[in-house]
């Protein structure tokens, strides 16, 4: 991931961040080998989110994992008690939620 990927805008700039899946963890160096949605792999600094395990999804920006991405859908099931969870049943955001 050494160049701008048009699909995400310019990832070297500003506030773009992408979801990446952890493939392997190197605890000694504080790095994880991660894979982006396009299948490209790169090493990611994990000091801000340690400990992480293979399979977890991380939000990565400028080579650094900023946070974890919790399993979720746009349909509201992932966050009961949050703004999403307050969406009334029967709205477009909840009625189509597969369980």
């Amino acid at each position, binding site marked *: *991931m*050494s*160049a*701008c990927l048009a699909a995400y*805008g*310019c*990832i*070297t*700039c*500003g*506030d*773009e*961040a992408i*979801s990446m*899946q952890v493939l392997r963890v190197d605890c000694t160096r504080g790095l994880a080998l991660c894979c982006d*949605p*396009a299948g490209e792999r790169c090493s990611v*600094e994990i*000091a*801000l*989110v340690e400990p992480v395990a293979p399979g977890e*999804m991380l*939000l990565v*920006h*400028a*080579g*650094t994992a*900023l*946070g*974890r*991405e*919790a*399993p*979720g*859908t*746009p*349909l509201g099931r*992932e*966050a009961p008690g*949050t*703004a*999403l969870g*307050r969406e009334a049943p029967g*709205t*477009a*955001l909840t009625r*189509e939620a597969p369980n």
Partner: protein
Amino acid sequence: MKFVDEFRDAELGRAVAAEILAAVEPGRHYKIMEVCGGHTHSIYKYGVDDLLPANVELVHGPGCPVCVIPMGRVDDGISLAHQPGVIFTCFGDMMRVPGSSQSLLDAKAQGADIRIVYSPLDALRIAKQNPGREVVFFAIGFETTAPSTALTLRRAKAESVANFSVMCSHVTIVPPLRALLESPDLRLDGFIGPGHVATIVGARPFQFLPDQYSKPVAISGFEPLDLLQSVLMVLRQLAEGRAEVENQYARVVPWEGNLRALEIMSEVFALRPHFEWRGLGFISQSALRISDAYAEWDAEERFSVPGVRVADPKACQCGEVLKGVIKPWECKVFGTACTPERPIGTCMVSPEGACAAYYNYGRFAREREVA
């Protein structure tokens, strides 16, 4: 693609758009500011605005970190890049940002050793590979990017990399929002909050928007359904007479933010008393400098930097665009003298800049705006 495809479901998008239509009061005009440049980019890339009723207007905020860097600061970077023995490193977008007489790309063409990096850690690696050279990293960005710089400085200190330094131009998002709300020429009804910044700082810092200005906020993700849902959340707050911070991006953003990142940032950075923003002028405590504990790695301490204030070109109206006072196509040079290939203003440089987003996704026509 996990966490991507499900947030681009067209049928669901149309359903949310129908709910947005039902949530608006006919005859009322709504102005909602998306703070983050990443949101602006997504809105035009996916045509989110085409799904909104004509009386819901999205106003583009000052959240593109390249766009808010003043010309004098670019000149400072170019001055450093021209110093003998220096390897100057920066993110790709900074290369084409016009300074008063040239860009970093021009300086590179003249022989300055300027290298594009994806991460500040790459700049540190270049320093370790070139112990006989001074390596400077031009750090820009909001709270999203600042932790990467902080971690890099920590590594530089731990590994005693003496030939590495950072020209710190990191900015913070809350002070310019306050400045915008105090501006008499801008009326806003609500905000779509910056999701990636909030990943670090949390949702709490945006509480001042409802508490002090009675403005609803939805912290938002970056996919089309995220944005549509966030618009709906803001409109529902307005319809119900509520003003709160709601977290649409709960799958990523914790209310308290990333405490470890905040701790590291407070160790490595300190607030500048004031900083100049393009189009917004000087704003108190709106940017970060390297803290005294890391002064050894501060490029502005190590090198002589001109620090001259430079006025923007008269033809350029980036300031008004950044304040949301005008739309990009209303700028006199938009799409003519100023294009992504030959930008005059910073908003045309970065894909996150409002002008570049309009230009790249074909939003030239005034008709679209007034339809």
